[in-house]
């Protein structure tokens, strides 16, 4: 799960950079950059879940 989460963080970044580099209109750029951010939020959520302790894990 951690690897997938890190991959999503990276993927969101690449989506945003690609949007800036390849899109012409401000609206398109904004939409794709926000889409990249959304992908990153999913990745962050997964990363958080991957580090949540299982019940009774802690001393």
């Amino acid at each position: 799960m951690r690897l997938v989460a890190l991959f999503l963080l990276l993927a969101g970044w690449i989506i945003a950079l690609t949007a800036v580099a390849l899109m012409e209109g401000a609206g398109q750029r904004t939409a794709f950059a926000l889409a990249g951010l959304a992908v990153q939020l999913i990745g962050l959520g997964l990363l958080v879940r991957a580090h949540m302790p299982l019940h009774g894990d802690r001393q």
Partner: protein
Amino acid sequence: MTPEAALGGAALFFCLGAIFLIPCAAAGLAILNAGLGRSRNAAHAMLSALCVLGIAAVAYCVVGFSLQGLPGHDAHQVVVNGKTWSWAGAEPLLMRSVNFEISDASAGSLTALYGVFVAGLAALIPLGSGADRWRLGAGCISAALLAGVVFPLFSHWAWAGGFLQQLGVNYGLGHGFLDASGSGAVQAVGGLGALAIAWILGPRRGKYTADHMPVAIPGHNAVFVLFGCLLAWMGWLGMNSAGALLHGAAFVRAPLVVINTTLCAMCASLAAAALTRSRFGKPDASLCANGWVAGLAASSACCASVRPALAMLIGLAAGVIMIFAVEWLEFRLSIDDPGGAVSVHALGGIWGILSVGIFSGVAGQWLAQVIGIISLVGFVLPLLYGLNWLLDRVYPQRVTPQGERQGLDLHELGAGAYPEFMSHNDDLWQR
């Protein structure tokens, strides 16, 4: 004309004096982190800070500066759709290209000096989240990776003509990514390093009960914590002034930078005091201190570009964000961050970056700032997490349970910080 060449005589010497104040910020953070930790780890916390500063300075000098580079100098570039994207500096190792004669023609030496100090400051931030359980050796190696690789790469993008700084010229996104004195390059990079460390080390023993409820482990010295804030304020005045001048602000803006830095910190601390007073009945000293530093972290991006009224607003918001973030991380996400480094530096820094975009009034500026934040989350966090995870596999970063119970002072250093005081039993340790 590059910003480094634009500095004239008086500005150069003002900048040099301001840079000399930056170690106060490091001293402030070190003593603040020591105060927020347990008494049996106090000497270890201070020694870790000294070692991390030393290692970070060496790593930055040997490798980091060459990756960071200077504006207008050679850099590693790729061409995408006809536009040049500069992704890393291409200076020789060991700062061999820097002319150490301070003159009007070259302020490269000041950029190098500034980099040595702020790389150390960025590397110091994760000590807050790893407090009470991070081995000294592991902390030093992790600091070398942060100051030698991660910080220089992002600072090239933001300060030395990298692709983030060029977003304005290449794609019309405002003035490009703006981060005058390091809300992103220093605070957020350090804060995200702190998040990676908190995850990799896991929570302190006894921090959470079996049903996931956090147990309060108060800092051992509130005076250290609050005095650390005052020291950090002095350091930030120097860091923000020097950073703003080195990264393109006019010399006449120096008073504005100082006023904004101060207002941001004070309003953030007041917001924290008011909020904790209204929620808990009394203002909380450690949260007010963290609010102060969160305001400082947020001020670094916007100090040269907003009016004082907006700086107060940004500071107030930084204080509120920090309070809720501390609670959220501890209760909801089970992230044990004794020094509050993630809430203060990562979120405070990111809020500072975003505030420049919100309040600049320039078309496209907010998108440039958002792209900067996406780069922090999408590149810096995975890189720091991956490097520290690899390090943990080779050289376990967390101290043994026995060492954690005994205290890092005795376990790793062989002597406590307060040898004449009787140490008490650890009531938080669950047998």
